[in-house]
């Protein structure tokens, strides 16, 4: 048939026509703009409004930022040079750089100590955050808290050493007995750690040298962004285990344990952080043995940790609830006891589900560390509102300082949330 047909017509095309390029209005930059910026009349109008808004934003801020001065000694001098021009006096940042970062009482010859602790923080956090790295690095992570404490606070090296020894003793005991009976190993470990710390209370003063290698710095001398970092890192890391314990307690079948956890969590979540900081500042002292003086920074760490652990507990409870019941039953049917089932089956999956929530709480907590400025601690915001804005040289330089604080917090928090999104993509095991 086809043959006869082929002979009866003058021309039959035997190959397909190559696809024509799309019309110029549908491809390339123009096509993209038509689709994404000017699809409809309303859309075009929106685009124009948005462009105008961006224009206003840029013309308002760019000259101010680009024309900024970086090397004057006071606001008056800066204003004199600018002569009414709309530009920033960033010199407050260069001049008060150390105060913004370390507070105004931290001895300036020791700035290198928190500096090194800050750099080492990344090294210590890396194996926790990126699990492609060799696991041996976790050893440094374990050492880091004691090293960082020693670097920032100084004093005799035996304090952190004995603190670490306590943990090691606890771990050894747990390793010996925990295999047979988790509870026995766990509580035995705690007892062993406390025994070591109790002994350290007698040993350390005896062997501490007169002149320690690193001179001691008082807690009340901490300040600036360093204080925000200390509070954020310490409280997040402490509240994670506490939050897991609270979440498990809330799921517990033992009514008393369950109700203790419920009351604690709901109470903490029901009140603002600022009232807990008031408790740390003015009330907590009433509940301690008469005559004890207690670092304000330690009291604040206790309260913020309690605060964060309640929120983390709720996040983890969500993760535990999201786990299919079959997982719990499968663990039971394998004959695992409660501790094994939780450690090996339930918690790894539940924690994975709750990672985004935990990161959200951590970011929120890090932002909330600025609240300590209200109880007269000189963190970054406290430094700006207190010593710097009140000084004669820089009284009235407002935007530069708060923009700096905002940028610093933005970089940190945005970085953490980007990491969490990356991790979420990494951990996805379902096939989509």
């Amino acid at each position, binding site marked *: 048939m086809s043959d006869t047909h082929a002979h009866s017509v003058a021309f039959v095309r035997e190959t397909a026509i190559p696809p024509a390029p799309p019309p110029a209005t549908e491809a390339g930059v123009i096509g993209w703009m038509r689709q994404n910026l000017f699809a409809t009349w309303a859309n075009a109008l929106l*685009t124009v409004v948005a462009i105008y808004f961006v224009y206003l934003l840029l013309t308002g801020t760019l000259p101010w930022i680009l024309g900024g001065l970086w090397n004057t000694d006071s606001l008056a001098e800066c204003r004199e040079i600018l002569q009414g021009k709309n530009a920033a006096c960033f010199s407050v940042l260069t001049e008060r750089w150390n105060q913004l970062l370390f507070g105004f009482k931290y001895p300036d010859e020791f700035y290198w100590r928190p500096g090194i602790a800050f750099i080492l923080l990344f090294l210590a956090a890396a194996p926790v955050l990126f699990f492609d790295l060799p696991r041996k690095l976790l050893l440094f992570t374990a050492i880091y808290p004691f090293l960082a404490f020693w670097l920032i606070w100084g004093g005799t090296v035996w304090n952190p050493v004995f603190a670490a020894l306590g943990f090691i003793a606890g771990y050894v005991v747990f390793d010996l007995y925990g295999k047979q009976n988790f509870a026995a190993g766990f509580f035995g470990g705690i007892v062993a750690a406390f025994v070591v710390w109790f002994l350290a209370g007698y040993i350390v003063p005896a062997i501490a040298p007169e002149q320690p290698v690193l001179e001691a710095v008082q807690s009340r001398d901490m300040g600036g962004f360093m204080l925000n970092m200390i509070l954020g890192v310490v409280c997040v890391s402490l509240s994670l285990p506490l939050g897991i314990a609270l979440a498990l307690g809330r799921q517990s079948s033992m009514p008393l344990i369950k109700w203790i956890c419920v009351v604690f969590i709901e109470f903490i*979540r029901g009140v603002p952080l600022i009232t807990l900081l008031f408790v740390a500042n003015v009330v907590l*002292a009433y*509940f*301690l043995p008469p005559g004890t003086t207690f670092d304000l920074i330690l009291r604040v760490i206790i309260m913020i940790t309690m605060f964060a652990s309640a929120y983390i507990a709720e996040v983890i409870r969500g993760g535990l609830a999201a786990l299919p019941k079959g997982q719990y039953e499968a663990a039971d049917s394998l004959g695992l006891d409660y501790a094994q089932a939780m450690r090996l089956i339930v918690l790894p999956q539940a924690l994975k589900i709750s990672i985004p929530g935990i990161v959200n709480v951590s970011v929120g907590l890090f932002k909330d560390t*600025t609240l300590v400025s209200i109880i007269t601690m000189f963190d970054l*915001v406290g430094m700006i*509102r207190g010593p710097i804005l009140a000084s004669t040289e820089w009284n009235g330089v407002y935007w530069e300082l*708060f923009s700096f604080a905002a940028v610093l917090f*933005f970089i940190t928090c945005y970085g953490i949330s980007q990491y969490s999104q990356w991790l979420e993509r990494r951990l996805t095991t379902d096939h989509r």
Partner: protein
Amino acid sequence: MTALTDPPRESFRLSMLINDKRYRSLTFQAIALILLISVFAYLGSNLMANLAAAGLNISYSFLGDPAGYDINQTLIPYDSQSPHLQAAWVGILNTLLVAVLACVSATILGVFAGVLRLSNNWLVRKLMSGYVEIFRNIPVLIWILIIYGIITVSLPGARVYLGEDPQRELVLGMFAFTNRGIYVPAPIWGPGSMIVVGTFFVSIAAMFAYRSYAKKLLFNTGKLLPMGWPSLVILIVPTILVFFVMGQPITLDMPDPLANRFNLRGGIQIGAPLIALWLALSVYTGAFIAENVRAGILAVSKGQTEAAAALGLRPGRIMNLVVLPQALRVIIPPLISQYLNITKNSSLAIAVGYADITATLGGITLNQTGRAIECVLLLMLFYLVISLSISAVMNVYNNAMKLKER
């Protein structure tokens, strides 16, 4: 064949408290109870010892003493001779005021930004995600201070509005933006004004009645009554009619540039701290709400929209009848917890000197009387009551909205 017998009854041994699953939980609970009681006893004995040493006792009688300080933004009558309790009430009302204001504006802002984040327009989408990221990642305390700074540093003093020939005219003849706050006209409720207000409330009820009647008619008979303009007419016309029939009983008290040489008189002054707190809480929480709204809309699967379109519904009805009811189920629980966050974050008022409950009871009253325990306890109790009642409402709502399955 051996008969099945009961296993031999074990007699109770002490080691069973740890090793037997039946008794172990009792052991743990007993230990927990003992620990709890001893911790509380320890704290309590310390408290007693400390109070005795300081010659104090727990008493709330200080609430009746004159407060002795002034508050410049109050909703109820208050002067420096009023008792501390009255100051606390002023604080509570101020907290609720700023919380309600911020909830409303944050919701509007959040819904707006959340919907625009899903826009087809690339530029608008990017702008809105910029807004969300910037405001979510910077502490709200810094936002409060920045906005407070914008008001107090950048706006002019009230002086520029004063005199016969002021440097600046009042905006629209009724608003003045100064570094102490914004002056707005105050309504004066003349005789008969309550009738106007009453009419307005009745028209609101009538509007809802009309809408539910129209809906019922539509579902029963398929007859479609117009919804938009009749509702508007029912809402506005009777009130305006009554207003003029009664002889315009409500008048406005404008800020007057001529009444005083040093400050604006007349109208209501909305103080700079209130505005700063309100705006900061709105834009900060608005960014979070935008994310909730976006997640809620994305949670409604595309098949729903397409199915509704296949049934022949118009886009507006698809939104109202199909997408929104399903999206709201996802949006509302986190939205309510954002409201809770606003209420709790309003305690940052103390940073800019707005007299909320934290600043009055937890700030000045505490410092003046030295009654730290009582003040902080009352403060926590107030926030707890608010939080728990909002959670209770949320639980009721969640149960009502739960997907009815099997």
